[in-house]
């Protein structure tokens, strides 16, 4: 059931208990976790934090800890499946689920006792009404009662006939109701999408309790920006949420304007920025950033020779000398940097890139440290999906979690370096896929498969990296193809996951259109296709549109999908 007063129904309940935090492996969840940890440390709530990266790990962690904890908080996992059925908890176990995955499973919504959803209710949830889906089992008893009554034969026969008519009508009604129920549930669960970021929900909780700090606000910003970078929410929702956060930012950070009471340079300041959309440009060179941001490389078509020429023209149009642009951003001439944003925006309009500037926030502490929210998102994502294994997978999670604290700048810088490598790898792979026409249309969708020997293919055995690659690829493909129908198709991307076990990771993303609502139907489609062909698939990720399957089953799985979706 939905929690209406976060503070009274969630926080006050657990503040005297010991809690187990199960946190999913994405940046939004990490940020929400940091905010919640800060609140818990403030109030001395004893907790244990266990990172989980999939349904199996969630079940294992639950089984290991269920004897020791009665209160579980799930962050960015668990809303879209029937939790009670999967975990089979005891009667006195409570789950608090703060998840941005939608649609929320109806059992979770209508369970009154054990499952509490920390979700903003003004999100477009469209949960079906209770009576449409659930029905009490009283009708069965009524029928049997009627039969056990005894009386005169003629009366009995008449009553018997009436009973038969009644019963058939009831059965027909029931069948109609069940058909309608199936339809309603199918419509409700068909499309997957995302709601408000969990980090923002946690920040709201902190704000309601007046325990919010600038640091927590920054984490909420990073959580929201993660949703935007990974294309999980619509542009409108992003702008609305940015507006909400901007109010908090000005509330916390207004002391800088006043000369007399200005804070020390080492204090954290967050500022609202109408900044360029170029990835990591302040920690890289402007040229590299232009080449490796999906937006610019897709519009300028940088995989072709003509595209490179257009890039040179673009730079020339702005009057930026190549030598300046190719060196580190911080070393560029001040005169060039001063009006950079306006200059780039003007020239970008001429080259078909109207949205090169985007509303975002940046953080500033000390003399050297200035980061934009998207920088942090890229750095943390690449730390979390670092393929250089230094231990179990949870080590990467812990490193990424640490890098979000202000004191661990070395980890953040390591993350930035890894992010640069990742972005470069993505661009090169996209360029090679488009130049070698690896993206083929299968009818209802586009399909692209990465071969084993491709450089950097190991980077893409991780779900978030593969999703970023697929979105970039789709954007570039849409800009490169002339086929009008292909521009509206969704994309399925496959990459080798584990060579020894012969598994492949497959990701489905919705079509790339101007006003897309980011709703993804591949979750259900994958499930149905796997069922009908009996392929050995593993639906382990919290996002239902990411699956793993055996390489041998790939072709029949795809055939089933094609017939399902056409």
């Amino acid at each position, binding site marked *: 059931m939905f929690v209406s007063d976060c503070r009274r129904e969630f926080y006050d309940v657990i503040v005297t208990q*010991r809690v187990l935090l199960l946190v999913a492996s994405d940046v939004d969840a990490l940020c929400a976790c940091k905010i919640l*940890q800060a609140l*818990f*440390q403030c109030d*001395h*709530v*004893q*907790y*244990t*934090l*266990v*990172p989980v990266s999939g349904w199996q790990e969630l079940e294992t962690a639950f089984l*290991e*800890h269920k*004897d*020791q904890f009665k209160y579980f908080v799930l962050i960015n996992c668990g809303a879209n499946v029937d939790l009670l059925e999967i975990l089979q908890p005891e009667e006195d176990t409570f789950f608090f689920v703060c998840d941005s995955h939608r649609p929320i499973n109806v059992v979770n919504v209508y369970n009154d006792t054990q499952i509490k959803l920390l979700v903003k209710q003004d999100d477009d949830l469209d949960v079906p009404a209770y009576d449409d889906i659930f029905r009490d089992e009283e009708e069965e008893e009524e029928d049997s009662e009627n039969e056990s009554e005894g009386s005169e034969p003629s009366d009995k026969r008449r009553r018997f006939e009436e009973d038969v008519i009644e019963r058939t009508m009831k059965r027909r009604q029931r069948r109609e109701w069940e058909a309608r129920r199936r339809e309603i549930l199918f419509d409700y669960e068909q499309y997957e999408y995302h709601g408000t970021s969990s980090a923002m929900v946690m920040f709201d909780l902190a704000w309601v309790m007046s325990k919010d700090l600038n640091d927590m606000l920054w984490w909420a910003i990073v959580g929201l920006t993660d949703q935007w970078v990974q294309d999980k929410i619509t542009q409108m929702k992003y702008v609305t949420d940015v507006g909400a956060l901007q109010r908090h930012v000005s509330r916390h950070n207004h002391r800088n304007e006043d000369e007399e009471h200005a804070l020390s340079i080492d204090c954290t300041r967050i500022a609202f920025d109408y900044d360029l959309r170029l990835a990591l440009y302040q920690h890289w060179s402007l040229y590299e950033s232009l080449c490796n941001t999906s937006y610019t490389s897709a519009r300028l078509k940088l995989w072709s020779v003509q595209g490179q020429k257009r890039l040179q023209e673009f730079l020339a149009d702005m009057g930026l000398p190549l030598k300046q642009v190719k060196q580190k951003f911080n070393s560029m001439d001040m005169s060039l940097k001063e009006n950079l944003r306006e200059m780039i925006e003007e020239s970008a309009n001429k080259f078909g890139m109207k949205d090169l500037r985007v509303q975002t926030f940046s953080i500033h502490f000390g003399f050297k440290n200035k980061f934009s929210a998207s920088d942090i998102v890229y750095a943390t994502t690449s730390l979390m999906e670092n393929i250089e294994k230094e*231990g*179990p997978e*949870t*080590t990467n*999670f*812990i490193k990424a979690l640490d890098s979000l*604290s202000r*004191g661990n700048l070395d980890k953040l810088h390591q993350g930035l370096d890894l992010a640069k490598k990742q972005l470069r790898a993505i661009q090169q792979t996209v360029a090679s896929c488009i130049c070698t026409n690896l993206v083929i249309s299968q009818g209802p969708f586009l399909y692209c498969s990465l071969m084993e020997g491709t450089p950097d293919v190991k980077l893409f055995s991780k779900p978030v990296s593969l999703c970023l690659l697929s979105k970039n690829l789709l954007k570039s493909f849409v800009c490169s193809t002339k086929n009008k129908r292909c521009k509206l198709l969704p994309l399925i991307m496959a990459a080798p996951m584990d060579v020894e076990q012969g598994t492949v990771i497959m990701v489905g993303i919705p079509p790339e259109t101007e006003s897309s609502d980011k709703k993804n139907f591949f979750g259900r489609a994958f499930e149905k296709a796997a069922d009908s062909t009996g392929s050995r698939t593993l639906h382990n990720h919290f996002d239902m549109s990411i699956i793993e399957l055996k390489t041998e089953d790939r072709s029949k799985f795809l055939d089933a999908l094609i017939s399902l979706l056409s």
Partner: protein
Amino acid sequence: MAGERVMELVRELHRATGGHLPPFRTEGLRQALEEMRALYERNQADVSEAKSGRTDLIFLIRFRHCCLLRNQRCLLAYVYDRLLRIRALRWEYGSVLPNTIQFHMSAEEVEWFNRYKKSLATYMRSVGGEEGLDLTQDIKPPKSLYIEVRCLRDHGEFEIDDGTTILLKKNSQHFLPRWKCEQLIRQGVLEHILS
């Protein structure tokens, strides 16, 4: 050469830095005591001879006496230093020492340790009101009641004061009362996180 063996004992102890307790060298001690006994007997014999006239033996007697004193001093230093280290172990590890360390102690040292423990416990009980005060905790002034710790390796289940158990798995983070974690932090199972 006289005094060699006892010097070896002292040198070994000197090399073991950081409060580490090397194994108790019963053999070395026995040899040193043998040496002292031999010196003493020879001295006894020479003293009776010197009394009866041979004054040139006095220097030899004095030399042997110096050796005896030297041996005694070194042996006492060895045994005393070990006792100091064992005392420090009580403050570091608590009342139950790990088996590896207990191996390195002689029976008498174990006896001494038990008596020290008892005496410390009696003192702690007498200080600080009714339940006594555990002086071996919080050697450095604590900053907060609860600390955040991260598990560095799988340690299994861990029980805290109110009977509940926590499963310590690698890379899980916990927020626990400080006094419960100190032991494990010293052992290297948990790591204190400062944010």
